[in-house]
């Protein structure tokens, strides 16, 4: 039985872990690409080639090792991103750049196709079937007039899933391996101070929210309390009716006064006194010495192991 429970827990744990990992991989986004590269970013070999960028839109590190990249919908497994490379673990909200130079021998981040001829870029999970992201490449960016101009999501990870339309556009500057829109880390507090230099807006807004939250809680528990009292009264009325003592149901539950409690306590005390249910105490406290010095440390129960059992096969 115990074995079964452990097995079930292990399977559930594994499933959840795999599910979580798969869910994170699902948040990887093809983010930006550049086809004609004549004076833009160079790779480690000093070459200027087409490139595309993938963005980890999740808030956890995602390992894309074992996933696939392709420009051919009929061959989703065209380029397998090598597993076991620490660089394929993409930190949260970070980017990774792939060179589409058809030179897979140049390293993990050089794929075996070129964007100049590609119609689309397809990013697939390790099963080679589930597509994580897929964008269609715009033909106009194959033209020399669009040299060194990249096309991508105007804000990292945000935009339509087709690679065009909402959220996509020509970027003012190419931004390989970095944010497509520059985010100022200190923007929030600074913006807050600029629109609310004295703190009144914050005070009114936040206090309103605090009050709303607690007022809602108050209203809910007021109703729950009322329902509870009503139910208790009903129960006490039913019990009184069953015992033919309707007067017992007069005091609503939850509104028993302190005097009532005092009267009940006094009545009980007097009853016990009168009925001599409680005997007189001697008021003498004694301690009986015992010679048995029991301690779990010296107990054989904790010392002895269970006798080993040999399972004999018949």
């Amino acid at each position: 039985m115990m074995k079964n429970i452990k097995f079930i827990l292990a399977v559930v744990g594994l499933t959840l872990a795999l599910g979580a990992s798969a869910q994170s991989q699902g948040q990887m986004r093809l983010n930006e690409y550049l086809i004609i590269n004549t004076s833009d970013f160079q790779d480690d070999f000093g070459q200027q080639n087409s490139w595309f960028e993938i963005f980890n839109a999740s808030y956890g590190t995602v390992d894309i090792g074992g996933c696939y990249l392709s420009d051919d919908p009929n061959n989703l497994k065209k380029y397998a991103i090598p597993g076991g490379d620490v660089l394929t673990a993409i930190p949260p909200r970070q980017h990774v750049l792939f060179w589409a130079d058809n030179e897979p021998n140049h390293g993990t981040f050089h794929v075996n196709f070129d964007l100049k001829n590609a119609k689309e870029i397809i990013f697939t999970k390790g099963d080679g079937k589930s597509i994580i992201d897929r964008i269609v490449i715009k033909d106009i960016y194959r033209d020399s007039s669009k040299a060194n101009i990249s096309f991508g999501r105007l804000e990292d990870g945000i935009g339509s899933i087709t690679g065009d339309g909402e959220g996509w556009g020509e970027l003012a500057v190419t931004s390989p391996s970095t944010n497509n829109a520059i985010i100022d880390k200190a923007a929030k507090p600074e913006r807050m101070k600029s629109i609310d230099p004295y703190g009144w807006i914050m005070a009114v807004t936040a206090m309103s929210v605090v009050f709303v939250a607690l007022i809602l809680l108050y209203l809910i528990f007021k109703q729950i309390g009322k329902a509870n009292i009503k139910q208790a009264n009903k129960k006490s009325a039913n019990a009184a009716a069953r015992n033919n003592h309707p007067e017992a149901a007069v005091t609503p539950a939850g509104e028993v006064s302190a005097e009532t409690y005092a009267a009940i306590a006094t009545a009980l005390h007097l009853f016990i006194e009168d009925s001599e249910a409680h005997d007189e105490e001697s008021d003498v406290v004694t301690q009986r010495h015992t010679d048995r010095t029991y301690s779990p440390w010296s107990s054989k129960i904790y010392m002895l192991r269970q006798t080993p059992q040999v399972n004999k096969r018949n």
Partner: protein
Amino acid sequence: MNNIVENLQQFWQYTGFANCNFQYLIMICIGLTFLYLGIKKEWEPMLLVPIGFGIIIGNIPLFAGLKVSVYEEGSVLNILYQGVKQGFYPPLIFLGIGAMTDFSALISNPKLLLIGAAAQFGIFGAYAISLAFGFDAAQAGAIGIIGGADGPTAIFLSSRLAPDMMGAIAVSAYSYMALVPVIQPPIMRLCTTKKERLIRMKPPRAVSPTEKKLFPIVGFLLTAFIVPSGIPLLGMLFFGNLIKESGVTKRLANTASGPLIDIVTILIGLTVGASTQADQFLQLRSIWIFIIGACSFVIATFAGVLFVKFFNLFLKEGNKINPLIGNAGVSAVPDAARVSNNVGREYDPSNYLMMHAMGPNVAGVIGSAVAAGMLLGFLG
């Protein structure tokens, strides 16, 4: 012989005496004062003793590179300090608080929740004052949370909004929490008439176990949906309360409200104290933090008491609330409630306000966590 003298000279350079300056001595004196207040006066000893000793630990003069300072990566103190820096001690404390807190007083008279909300004016009053004194919005938010009178919340928020000011903010918050019996009574007397102080409140009704079980679930769902950024604190608070009230997880509740909270209290107190190293702590802005922190407690107390007076205008005779429990809207549990009770009994020795004051007191814990979530959402 020369070698021995050289060795001794070198050893002297390693000692605290050789590296000492007056700043360290001031901080050690502050630590000793905390210990005095905690041990001799018994003011919040659970907090002031670990923090006071932590201040002394953090201010033993030493030279860099020994890998013992709280700010040196990999040192034992630094590893323990990660719970403060990364903000995982405060939610664990909230788990324990939840497992220790009986929300019955609040459930039986839920309108007391509103007092807990009103007292959060202290946070936003301090926020506005901090902005006026030139702090940026994130720093102002971190300083403002002192007004919530909740140490773990103050540490949690300041570790995210202004990590460099966390030591001063935490020490300020805990100091004023210890000083609640000194700060609040004069304000309570100032804002109330003798007649108001003698108001007797209706005894709380009996709360059913079902209501107690429902409270953490409904409370969490409601507050977390409104302020998701407060989930670490609110989630742990209400979860702690659920394991207490569910009746089937007694062992978990005992651990959360006993050994776990004790361990985390020791670690948080000691490391927060140790983080107040002289060069980080003895700055003009720390003085401002202490001054604004005091103002925030004063504003919170005024707001709580005055709100009850205002609220009483709408309540029928017999249902009125004694304004002396208004101060308990700050979340210094149960000290603020104890102050209400003591001040109330000064005027009517048979008027016990403790249980009534526990309502706004625990509502203050929820309110300050919601307010912290708001500040984190806007400024984080």
